[in-house]
């Protein structure tokens, strides 16, 4: 077992929220077409409020802190927040488009001991990236910032969200990351907007293109193993947790709302009205999330993919049932292995069933 796995297991046993994702704003200087957020400011927490929350998180044992947005650097006090986080000894990861970062900022992030900066790059071609962000020149500015961050010794991860329109560019982005000395991570997940609006799902990668990605050794490594049929489901899998959301991780919005995860918009409390630890320990919503084991999932517990599926309970929740299947993850499991999931078989059966009222036209 790796040290990270041991750490997660220990945190789980102690009931410690090891990782917190805090969005400091939903405002943004880009308008990415797949974004799940509304960018208006509805009264985001002040730096002083955030500092208070950070102190509570440190006391609660939080170690991994992701600061994101929106674009965190549109806040003029963003560095103040980062400095506060580092003074409380968090491992800080920033998610940013880096458009506002120059030499001075790169140097300062390095001096502060920020562990890594994750930056979204949609294509190595400016016309594709800029069309996604809807900001002319954004790719050039982002790449210039990545070079500066690397020059100052920061670890940079390029996150390549795949969707309609850029899926053929993943190898180009990967090569660009290698050239810049950045890590590369690929993500084919497009989520509904946080208010439940599903219009952005039209951007999800078509099945054929996702299949090409899953069978590309340059992107997934060992294709045979990645696309292998799932192994038999054992008792450990059935007793397992769906994911870390609400167990060792949670999400806090710029307005202080606490959720199990950034992709799981189940309101559990608000740090403006309650102490974080009271929410973490006593929220009935979090208790509900924590009570679920893989064997309790009505459809997925009978699925052959149970042990290998990337099922996201947040996406399932947005589809109407946190215990239900997540359609997107069912599709990924199917595209990866060619084996239909229990969720798909259920839908097949439902669509084949005649309606309660049959009308025959003569």
């Amino acid at each position: 077992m790796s040290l990270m796995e041991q750490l997660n297991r220990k945190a789980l046993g102690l009931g410690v929220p090891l990782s917190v994702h805090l969005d400091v704003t939903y405002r943004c200087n880009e308008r990415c077409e797949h974004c799940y957020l509304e960018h208006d400011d509805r009264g985001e927490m002040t730096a002083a409020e955030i500092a208070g929350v950070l102190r509570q998180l440190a006391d609660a044992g939080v170690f991994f802190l992701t600061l994101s947005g929106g674009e965190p650097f549109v806040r003029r006090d963003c560095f103040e927040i980062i400095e506060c986080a580092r003074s409380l000894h968090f491992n800080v990861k920033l998610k940013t488009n880096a458009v506002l970062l120059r030499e001075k900022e790169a140097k300062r992030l390095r001096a502060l001991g920020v562990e890594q900066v994750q930056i979204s790059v949609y294509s190595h071609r400016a016309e594709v990236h800029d069309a996604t962000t809807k900001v002319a020149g954004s790719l050039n500015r982002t790449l210039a910032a990545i070079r500066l961050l690397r020059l100052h010794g920061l670890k940079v991860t390029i996150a390549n969200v795949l969707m309609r329109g850029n899926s053929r560019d993943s190898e180009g982005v990967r090569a660009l990351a290698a050239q810049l000395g950045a890590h590369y991570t690929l993500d084919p997940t497009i989520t509904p907007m946080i208010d439940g609006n599903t219009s952005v799902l039209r951007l999800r990668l078509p099945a054929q293109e996702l299949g090409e990605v899953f069978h590309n050794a340059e992107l997934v490594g060992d294709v045979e193993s990645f696309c292998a049929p799932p192994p038999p489901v054992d008792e450990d899998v059935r007793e397992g947790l769906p994911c870390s959301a609400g167990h060792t991780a949670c999400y806090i919005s710029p307005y202080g709302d606490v959720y199990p995860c950034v992709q799981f918009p189940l309101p559990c409390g608000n740090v403006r009205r309650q102490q974080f630890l009271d929410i973490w320990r006593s929220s009935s919503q979090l208790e509900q999330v924590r009570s679920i084991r893989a064997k309790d999932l009505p459809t997925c517990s009978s699925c052959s993919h149970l042990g290998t599926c990337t099922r996201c309970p947040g996406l399932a929740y947005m589809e109407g049932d946190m215990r239900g299947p997540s359609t997107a993850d069912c599709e990924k499991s199917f595209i990866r292995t060619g084996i239909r999931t229990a969720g798909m078989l259920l839908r097949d059966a439902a669509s084949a069933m005649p309606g309660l009222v049959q009308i025959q036209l003569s």
Partner: protein
Amino acid sequence: MNEKYIARSRQVAYRVLGEETIVMSATDSRLFNLSEVATVIWQAADGRTSLSEIVNRRVCAEFDVLPQVAYPDALAFAEELARHGILHISDRPIPVVETSAPIGAAVNP
């Protein structure tokens, strides 16, 4: 015996989890897990208190061990962390600069 002083690097994150401490280096993202005894030394590594004082006042007091036994182990531990760049060792007190001003104070660019 020359006195040794130890100070945590500013390029690390750390948190006490149970009785142990997790440490991650921002330089190479390496993760460390410090035992209960190592945690006591780590927390006392303020750059001002000598290692022998840390051993005498903290380690020996809390773990019922003799200084002549504990000190060589503590020094070896400190040297190992220093090799990984997450702890500084010096023959003199080490000035430690706080990571940041308190929030709300003026922040110099």
